[in-house]
């Protein structure tokens, strides 16, 4: 405070500060509303653009038909839906256990330089753009699946296909899930470890019964974010899935996912209005499913947080 300030100057100063205070709250509310409005606008656009196709064909019919042939006015999403479910389930089934085990190792077992090396390596892995994984997948994973993995389990594969995409997507999301899970484990207070070890539990018992529960909601979120990434993945499936518009008979077959359906067709077919509308409907479905999933996950997370609070 300036010592030479007269009372009226002081009052002016206060007025200005209060004005700024009021204005700043407006800006912040505005910024928040803008984000909400953006979301609303996107949904509205998608809905509005989907109307032509929905008024022409029933949603149920499109979702259960396996024939996608816009030139013949056939819009069946089923192969893409099946492909998306396949890829998501397979990648998560491969990635999740690995992510949790690796996170436990880094957070609870690794020490000193090893820990630093492993965790920074994983952070680097998580930061690699997916298109690079796609390229490496083409060179390494495609021949591996086509020449070794598929024959080994008695299946036939051209190399491109659902299993290939799932493998590469698992490699992409696992480091990401590891990082977030490690953070949740490391944020736990040492008292939890001391309390459990202090009654004679082993380290593994402590991890399994105490730490994994206490960090459970955080790990759950990590897995969910991984899920979201796989579900919405576009570039890697587009490069490696083989672009087959038929229901895959085995996971080793080529197929398509909802995002690849959009990217593969939108270039040449946006000119036909009904196709454009169909693709936008696919986009809307993606959005709604992700949203529903996040909402459900929030409820589950809340339950876990209550059940496993510490």
């Amino acid at each position: 405070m300036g010592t030479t300030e007269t009372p009226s100057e002081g009052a002016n100063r206060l007025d200005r500060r209060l004005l700024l205070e009021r204005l700043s709250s407006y800006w912040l509310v505005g910024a928040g509303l803008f984000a909400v409005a953006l979301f609303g606008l996107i949904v509205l656009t998608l809905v509005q653009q989907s109307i032509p196709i929905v008024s022409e064909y029933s949603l149920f019919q499109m979702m259960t038909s396996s024939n996608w042939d816009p030139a013949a006015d056939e819009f069946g999403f089923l192969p893409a839906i099946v492909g998306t479910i396949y890829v998501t389930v397979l990648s998560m089934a491969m990635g999740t256990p690995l992510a949790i085990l690796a996170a436990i190792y880094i957070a609870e077992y690794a020490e000193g330089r090893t820990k630093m090396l492993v965790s920074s390596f994983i952070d680097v892995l998580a930061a690699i753009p997916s298109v690079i994984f796609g390229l490496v997948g083409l060179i390494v994973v495609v021949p591996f699946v086509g020449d070794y993995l598929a024959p080994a389990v008695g299946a036939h594969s051209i190399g491109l296909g659902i299993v290939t995409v799932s493998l590469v997507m698992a490699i992409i999301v696992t480091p990401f899930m590891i990082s977030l899970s490690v953070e949740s484990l490391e944020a736990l207070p040492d008292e939890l470890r001391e309390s459990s070890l202090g009654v004679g539990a082993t380290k593994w018992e402590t991890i399994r019964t105490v730490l994994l529960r206490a960090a459970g909601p955080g790990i759950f979120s990590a897995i969910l974010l991984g899920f979201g990434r796989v579900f919405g993945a576009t570039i890697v499936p587009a490069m490696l899935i083989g672009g087959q518009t038929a229901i895959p008979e085995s996971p080793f077959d080529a197929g398509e996912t909802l995002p690849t359906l959009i990217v593969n067709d939108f270039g040449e077919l946006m000119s036909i209005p009904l196709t454009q509308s169909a693709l936008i409907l696919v986009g809307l479905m993606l959005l709604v499913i992700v949203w529903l999933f996040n909402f459900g996950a929030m409820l589950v997370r809340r339950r876990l947080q209550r059940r496993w609070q510490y």
Partner: protein
Amino acid sequence: MSNDIALRTDDLEVTYTGNREVTAVDGVSTEFAENKLTAIIGPSGCGKSTLLKALNRLHEIQPNAEITGEVYLGDEAIYDTDDPLPEIRRRVGYVPQTPTALPLSIYNNVAYGAKIHGDHSSEELDDLVESYLRKVNLWDEVKDRLDDPGAELSTGQVQRLCLARSLAVEPEVLLCDEVTSALDPISAEQVEETLEDLKEEYTIVMVTHSMDQAKRLADDVIFLYLGELVEANDTRSFFENPQHERTQEFVKGHTAVDYDDEPDEESVTDEQPVATR
């Protein structure tokens, strides 16, 4: 201290070798009498908690902690031993400073250790949970909500729950790290009453900041200053007739902590920040 000795340290030294080497416990040789409550007192950062944790090797979860010397539980060494670590920690229980419920139900918080160490029928477990909750004067408050998460109890209740959990594995010695410092006065009093009851049956070693608490509860007192043992005596003699000059100052309330002498505070675990969720 003519009674039987439950726990004894021999030239115990704990050093943290971080960026800067700090000796938190410096050549402490002392004894803890059976079925008595021994208070470890001293100014902040003097190594009280480190000494306590070294008594059941809990400091080993910190990286960079090095130890020399030995601790004897009865006649058995706990460092130079083939006994597995979990068994040592079962026999020497530990209750942390921050009241910490495990992410389990109230029932399973108490049954946790017992389930690990033995096969119990569900009736046996029910009895065990009830008897230990009664022992810490918590049963009447929680008997209708045993399946609720332990963390939904009040802080004071959680601290008594921690005591019940530790006692349920039938330890020979119970280590308590400032177990009332995070509690409001009423809860603290309840925990003190519980400790008062327990010291008939258990050997308790308690770290405390509070001289009044040591006077009220302890049978024996150990005074640590900068990691070194200054004086150990029965409570009455310790407060009425302190031998050492440093003790006299501390007891008078002129704690006379020369903060310049204090070890690097970040390296001494005595004053770890209370972890947030």
